[in-house]
């Protein structure tokens, strides 16, 4: 069968064809919105028109049949219009108010988790993990599933002082906003890579491999036409593995995950912040990583109990001080917590005013 004629450099389809009429009519003319329930909200236009949104959780990894099911809901209740959020939630766009409650009921009946709006945990931003990535040293989807099974009430019902944005990255490349999340998991290596000299010789550019190391730990090994790694300098970032895959960074028994906290994206009240190290290591414990799940719940609940209304995790910690964060959460402070890389000067304390 002949293929249709390919087109190049056409870019994405124009978004305007996918907007429901109520949005086309009121584009740029919205007045305000109200959160009706943890999973529904209504936007009011200056014209008086209303647009209802129902948000449901998604594992991000979706089978085509699941997308078709979402489409069927959209067809029955939303004239076929739906969207996805930047955090991979699904949003149904309801123009006809009388269809709102029936849609919610129908979604619930099929077991969809409705929620994630307002001061809650929303969908977790995460990476591919063992499902699909060559550099993964944990499984992001599995961790997300285990964490959200535990915290699901904070998505569907329970309120927090403010939004809590979770993320999981399956290596330090961080194809997700882990470095700027309220609470996040990042997979880390802890052992110096093992070099397969023969394969390095065949597959890698030696100067590029040497230049890839941020701590200048890689030296040439002219005898083998390969490289060597200075164990004292290596921080296990794995950048050499990316540039030269025969430098094996993976170590299944000693790879695992760290938890970082206090990152913030928006500029509301305080400036955007990086996440900082809370717990340096947990072993990978598939399929449900129980210790990681418990540690996240502990941090989340300590925050929920002690933070002021409107405070994000990072704002709460900055108010009480990191020394008090470790005390309140009962997390052990270790050598790994003290920066000895690029942020050392900014993070060592120079004041005698601190808490015990």
């Amino acid at each position, binding site marked *: 069968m002949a293929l249709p004629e390919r087109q190049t450099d056409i870019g994405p389809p124009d978004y305007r064809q996918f907007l429901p009429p109520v949005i086309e009519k009121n584009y740029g003319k919205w007045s305000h919105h109200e959160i009706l329930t943890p999973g529904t909200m209504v936007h009011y236009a200056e014209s008086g028109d209303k647009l209802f949104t129902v948000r449901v959780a998604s594992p991000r*990894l979706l089978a085509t049949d699941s997308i078709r099911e979402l489409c069927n809901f959209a*067809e029955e209740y939303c004239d076929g219009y739906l969207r996805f959020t930047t955090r991979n939630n699904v949003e149904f766009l309801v123009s006809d108010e009388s269809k709102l409650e029936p849609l919610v009921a129908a979604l619930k009946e099929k077991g969809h988790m409705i929620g994630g709006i307002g001061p809650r945990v929303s969908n977790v931003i995460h990476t591919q993990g063992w499902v699909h990535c060559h550099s993964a040293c944990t499984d992001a989807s599995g961790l997300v599933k285990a964490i959200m099974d535990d915290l699901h009430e904070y998505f569907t019902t329970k309120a927090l002082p403010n939004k809590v944005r979770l993320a999981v990255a399956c290596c330090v490349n961080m194809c997700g906003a882990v470095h700027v999340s309220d609470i996040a998991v990042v997979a880390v290596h802890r052992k110096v890579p093992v070099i397969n000299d023969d394969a390095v010789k065949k597959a890698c550019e030696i100067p590029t491999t040497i230049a890839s190391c941020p701590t200048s730990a890689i030296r040439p090994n002219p005898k083998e036409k390969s490289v060597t790694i200075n164990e004292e300098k290596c921080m296990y970032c794995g950048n050499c593995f990316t540039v030269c895959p025969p430098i094996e960074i993976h170590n299944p028994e000693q790879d695992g995950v760290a938890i970082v906290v206090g990152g913030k994206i928006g500029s509301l009240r305080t400036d955007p912040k990086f996440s900082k190290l809370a717990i340096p290591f947990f072993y990978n414990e598939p399929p449900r990583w129980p210790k990681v799940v418990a540690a996240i719940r502990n941090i989340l609940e300590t925050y929920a109990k002690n933070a002021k209304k409107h405070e994000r995790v990072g704002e709460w910690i900055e108010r009480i001080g990191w020394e008090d964060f470790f005390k309140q959460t009962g997390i052990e402070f270790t050598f790994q917590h003290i920066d000895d890389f690029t942020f050392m000067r900014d993070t060592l304390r120079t004041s005698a005013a601190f808490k015990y």
Partner: protein
Amino acid sequence: MSGKHKTPMLDELEKGPFPSFITEIKKARNSSAMPEMADDELGQLEKSYNSKRGYWKHGGIVGVLGYGSGVIGRYSSLPDEYPGVAHFHTYRINQPSGFFYTSKALKEICDIWDKYGSGLTNMHGSTGDLVLLGTTTENLETLFAEYSSRGWDLGGSGSAMRTPSCCVGQARCEWAMIDTMDICNTVTQHFQDELHRPAYPYKIKNKISGCACDCVAAIARADISVIGTWKGDIQINQAEVKKYADSGMDIQSDVIDWCPTECMSFDGSSITIDNSQCNRCMHCITRMTKALKPGKERGASILVGSKAPIVVGSLLSWVIVPFMKMESPYEEYIELLENMIEWWDDNAKPRERIGELIEVKGMRPFLEAIGVDPQPQQVYEPRKDPFFFWSESDFA
């Protein structure tokens, strides 16, 4: 179909209230014309759950003719054990601005994908693309003909302009100061060649958020970050302020006390703002939108440099242009983008992001190259040490 692999570890992840990705992978076996792909994906994943390591290789020449972006080569390192995923390439479709779809469009995408791929997707990838997970080299040209002829082009990958992305913007948000979806679409269309043909030193990302809430994480995740903002006084509707107070809102503790610049006060019936001291953080506006609206002159702040930790640590974007008008067709912004990218393309080493290059070369050469003056809004504070450069032009 039921699978050929026993997956006791993965089956555990079908329990519990949060939607299960394992259920999704199993489901794909029912719709895809190549059910062995999702099935062997499951088999290999179960092996990973036991051995605690992945079995994927990537890279190489994999793509559609004429393009170098949008398809990412992925191969199982155990093709004899899991032949269904011997090839398991990623096909990135450039998403429409704001992730809006009609069911008709999505179903069409699904039908084609079931015919020529695994039936698995990511809605969406971290950069924003609609990601199709798992197809073979053999099927790539067919997929491209089917999708592109229906209006769906490939997204970015490799050392290219990556697929731009934006928040929902003025389609459904009263806080959006700029038309993020139109800017995103315009930029994407303008840089088609740079998006599909990876000729840059490394990746470069552009994200556009309508306000300081930054729902698309532009400041954290884009080399070039656009944040909608305003100039002029916050518009106050005192009648609405009173309504908020009457409805039980504690305006003092919920709004006034959180103002980072202490430029607001509330006397029990009306709000006063010293706009000269406002830093436009958006807290008050998000808490009482009916009463407080941003000033009337709208535009954006342009920030540059953010990236994830590899290699020398994470960066958040730095303010470069404090305020720029953003009106269609966005000529000023696109010219700035071109100038910034040209400077980076001319100066960067392979795999060096623009933020890292600015750190190496210094902010002055960058600002001079793009024709932006030094301004106090670009820094938290001036330098502390007495070491600074002078250039010949300073003596002129």
